[in-house]
């Protein structure tokens, strides 16, 4: 499976993502934001970080960068586009995903392990995933997902809520919600479920010496579903 990771000025999880993709067998390429086009890919990843310093609004300047048109075209033609953290913020700014990411409820940056519940498996990311609850890692200041009532209803009706924050046992409530996101939402899909944006970082959980290994399941599953 061929993947491309886009590097924006200020991206800082690009290397980590590249390392993770390669580790599980993706043929990965790094792509500079100023390039006109993206090499032939089966998956495009917008990595975490602070693209353009997060100035103006997180992800907003990146959503107007040169490469983004190719990303949007790729998504509209059904290609898999994954945005992690700042990548998720960029995807909402491009309009590929609904809603916005506001500052965390308690106004602090949070770096911590979290549990997330997989809400939908009828898609190329989570189909046949052996676990329903994953332990991943978050590190963000603006991860508080919000959308209008209409948008929320449509997300729910179409099963576009991908993952939600929960406790180790799956409980979803205020105490298992680290940032105040509406309905504990940690990640969502677009209509066709080929575009996924989520705040947690699977690439930081890929071996047992790190915070955990559930990130490995995530990447392996995408590969398995591609075969």
């Amino acid at each position, binding site marked *: 499976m061929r993947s491309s990771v886009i590097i924006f000025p*200020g991206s*800082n*999880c690009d290397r980590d993502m590249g390392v993770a993709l390669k580790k599980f067998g993706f043929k990965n390429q790094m792509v500079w934001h100023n390039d006109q086009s993206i090499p032939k890919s089966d998956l495009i990843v917008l990595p975490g970080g602070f693209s353009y*310093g997060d100035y103006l609004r997180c992800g907003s300047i990146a959503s107007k960068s040169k490469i983004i048109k190719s990303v949007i075209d790729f998504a509209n033609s059904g290609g898999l586009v994954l945005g992690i953290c700042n990548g998720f913020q960029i995807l909402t700014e491009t309009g590929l995903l609904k809603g916005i990411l506001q500052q965390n409820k308690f106004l*602090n*940056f949070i*770096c911590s392990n979290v549990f997330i519940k997989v809400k939908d498996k009828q898609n190329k990311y989570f189909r046949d995933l052996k676990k329903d609850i994953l332990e991943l890692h978050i*590190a963000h200041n603006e991860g508080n997902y919000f959308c209008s009532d209409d948008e929320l209803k449509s997300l729910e009706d179409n099963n576009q809520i991908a993952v939600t924050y929960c406790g180790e046992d799956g409980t979803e409530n205020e105490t298992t919600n680290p940032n105040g996101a509406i309905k504990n939402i940690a990640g969502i899909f677009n209509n066709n479920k080929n575009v996924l944006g989520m705040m947690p970082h699977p690439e*930081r959980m890929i071996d047992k*010496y790190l915070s955990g290994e559930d990130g490995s399941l995530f990447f392996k599953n995408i590969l398995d579903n591609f075969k």
Partner: protein
Amino acid sequence: MEVTEAVAIDHGLKKEEFSKICKLLKRTPNLTELAIFSAMWNEHCSYKSSRKHLKKMHTKGKQVIQGPGENAGVIDIGDDDAIVFKIESHNHPSFIEPYQGAATGVGGIMRDVFTMGARPIANLNSIHFGSPQHKKTRNLLRGVVKGIGGYGNCIGVPTIAGQTTFDESYNGNILVNAMTLGLVNKNKIFYSKAAGLDKPVIYVGSKTGRDGIHGASMASATFDDKIEEKKPTVQVGDPFTEKLLLEACLELMADNSIIAIQDMGAAGLTSSSVEMASKGNLGIELNLSEVPCREEKMTPYEIMLSESQERMLIVLEKGKEEHAKKIFDKWNLDFAVIGKTTNSKKIELIFDSKKVAEIPIDLLAENAPIYDRPWKKTKLPQKIKFDKDEFKSLKLSDCLKKILSNSNISDKKWIWDQYDHTVMGDTIQKPGGDAGVVRVHGTNKAVAASVDSSALYCFSHPLTGGKQIVCESYRNLISVGSKPIAITNCLNFGNPEKEKNMGEFVECVEGITEASKYLDFPVVSGNVSFYNETKDKGIKPTPTIGGVGLISDYQKMLTMDFKTEGNLVYVIGKTDGHLDQSIFAREILNEKKGPPPTVNLFNEKNIGETVLDLSRKNLIVSCHDVSLGGILTALSKMCIKGKKGIKINSLKGLTNKYEYFFGEDQARYIVEIPKASLKKVNDILNKYSVHFDELGTVNGQSIEYKDDINLPIEELADTHKYWLKKYMDS
């Protein structure tokens, strides 16, 4: 403006220093020249009060590639890999403007590291605040933590460990010390020594603005009531630009275009250009009209003194200008050829086609004043005769709970949750352990780092205190299974013009030197921060030690959490029960006098090597050094982290349980031993002739000791974990 003695004094120079300048120059300097002298001759840049004593430090060893004197120190970790590291203070600016002060402190130290060609791989910090009851403490803490996080998180370098303390002596002067470690190929290290004539001098990075003018002089003065007026001397950081600068510099460093490179830190363009020329024994000519400026009509005076952040000065190979410019254009950064190296041995400044300053370099560097300031020895205080009958009314478990929730012992999760500590994907020990650990990317090696200081011990007896912190750092590194390699130090003191403060400095340095020599734990970089004083009230002497250790196989790293029920727990090292200056004496008995615990360097080394041997042979599964709060505090942390209890044995021949459990004797570790390894462990302990106590067994969910203690771990965890959060929310 005419330059007079009064103008010179306004620039922070002493009367005698001004007449020395006039004599050396054989004329009165113009205002720009005076500014350059004031920047180069202030305490912060010239080390005029400390230099004489710093020379005595132990700085050599076969592991040292570069000792003090460069942007940062460099140590060899094998296989062509080297670690570049340094700690630096940003105390004064952080007190005036906590967010920007702390943020630019982090930015500055990272630049020092990547200037040498290294990619930063870990950040640490040591931060010290006034009493929790003081009205400014909460806001200063919040601002500093946000500033550190705001900068480090954005750059994408994990913050892996730190230290936070509270003491009323910091009420008017907080301390913010930031440390960075970088990884470099040892054959591709870049230095600041210029070489070759007529080589282009290049300015890259952010534009120059009017921020931070006089920053270095501000940092060399004490505070008074008017500190609000000093806000404009604090620089404003832009981590995004620094990230671009980091990537652009590393890209340019891939080939041999750079001859020398120096970041513009304290005293900006002045200090960087003078240092590069001075080290290369050359002259330098700068055309200030070519300097990219953020604001209109900036004068040579302002350009030379600006401390705008995220700027570098490079001496390039001739003909490489276009190649270099392309890289900086790609990263959207300013690039300007602003001068050249010359054989004049002078710094010559041109502005609007006119020469505006001309000073021989040696007057600024070698001829800078050096002071042999008078200092006073601190006598070792008398040992306190504690009334042990008085102890009997104290319940061990109440004392323990009080100590665990003490501001200086309690968990600092509220702080490190705000720092990205996992970015770069190699953090294998997070903040909250004895040391942070990151893997050397793509290898089996890992690097451990820790920051430590013990102001109470240093205040009580600076010589012992100086030794103690080096040992503390050594122990923290061994506790995670790493071999201690070298240290960096940040020497935070009061006013050197006072004999007592100067004495504290001299004796702490002596202590640090003695311990680092004995332990083969050399000092490779550092910085001195004097004048931490407000309205005549100085801080307690607070030298901070940043230690770095190496784990050759990261799978052998140790953590402090108890692992398995039934495993045995030993205290390695002898407990005499030294209570003077302990948390127990200060917080429970309210006794603040007495000497700090004695440091026995032979024991430190022997016991440290024993524990390292045990960890290399995989014979112990957890380890934690015993420090502040003594054995019971250390045990509690191991229980809380492992979510497991311990049954403590009735200890034979125990003179006094309070002294045993809360004494702060040095050179001790608590280790967890699987039963199967017991014989081998005992053999090794006997081989090294090391004293040890069989303390107990990992067991259940409580700490139990005879009829004295029966405390559920969950209750202890609550006491330990939430003090800071509650304090910040209140």
